[in-house]
């Protein structure tokens, strides 16, 4: 690896979709961080067996969505957009009622 590559982060082999993905994650974290100042979250009990904060539910939504996409890729040849749609529904339910 040459020095320029190190300075320009070329070694990270960036692609546009991955950049968009991580930007979305960072934006999500910033939004939830700002929300924490504006509307602080406190633990509450929903349908999950443990009390959770908004951050906990966000993490569960992201992790669950990752597994929904993996299952889709492993077992179906249909468009990945279906998995994304299921993930949005799952995340909404988790964040609202979890």
């Amino acid at each position: 690896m040459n020095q320029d590559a190190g300075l320009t982060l070329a070694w990270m082999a960036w692609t546009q979709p991955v950049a968009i993905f991580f930007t979305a994650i960072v934006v999500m974290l910033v939004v939830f961080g700002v929300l924490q100042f504006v509307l602080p979250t406190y633990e509450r009990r929903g349908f999950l067996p443990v009390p959770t904060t908004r951050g906990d539910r966000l993490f569960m939504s992201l992790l669950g969505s990752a597994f929904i996409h993996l299952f889709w890729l492993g077992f179906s040849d249909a468009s990945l957009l279906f998995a994304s749609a299921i993930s949005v529904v799952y995340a909404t339910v988790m964040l609202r009622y979890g």
Partner: protein
Amino acid sequence: MDNKREYQWAWLMVLPVVLVVAFSAIMPLMTVVNYSVQDIFGPNSRFFVGTEWFKEVLRDAELHGALIRQFIFSASVLLIQIPLGIALALCMPKKGAGVSFALVLLALPLLVPWNVVGTIWQVFARPDVGLAGVVINALGFDYNYTGDSLDAWLTVLVMDVWHWTSLVILLCYAGLQAIPDAFYQAARIDGASRWAVFRYIELPKLKGVLLIAVLLRFIFSFRIYAEPFVLTGGGPGNSTTFLSQSLTTMAVGQFDLGPAAAFSLIYFLIILLFSYVFYLTILNMDREG
């Protein structure tokens, strides 16, 4: 109100750690995600392939085999090491000179580097010159871990038990030592049996350390690499090839960086999921007291 304000600024305290983790973990993770969606031929020669590698890895029968073996191995490790660790911790001396001796003795296997553990057991279990191998064969068992899958599995399992049960024992011992004497005195007054003392006093008090022991043993066993690699090389056949060895073969042996990156992410997500479930369980148990 003061507590609320303190709570809101608490994140400043963790900022240095976040920065260190960003450089040591998050940037490499981002790189792996980038690799997982590309076909990489060299530093300046790579092509975007989307989710192709994930599909390939998730449908690869060899990797399914490695994943199943990994789950069986981790489950076996937990089923053996946790009860054995508790039992041995209960047998340890509570006071006197024997305590230091037992603690040093138990810590020894934990101090041996992982690849050296593999080498020790490779020699120890050899059916021609190894002490264990020769003795087992002399007892009339046809034992050869280099040629028989079951023997190889048992050897890897026993080696892991030898290496890591000490950790469970030490954690349980610390947990047992933390139980106040008043509990035992109350049990004696009530005429409780030894089993009742264990069931209603010791086991509930050990819940916290046991969950940490289970979490650590799960993570360590799920990413085991050096010991079985040195001992059996993943053989005979693929019988002791676990996930990390498959991953290394893919990434370093075949230089398939794209599929290896996709595989790493799936591997990472599985460990993250189990760790998070354990974390929530520990948190919940702490709250319930």
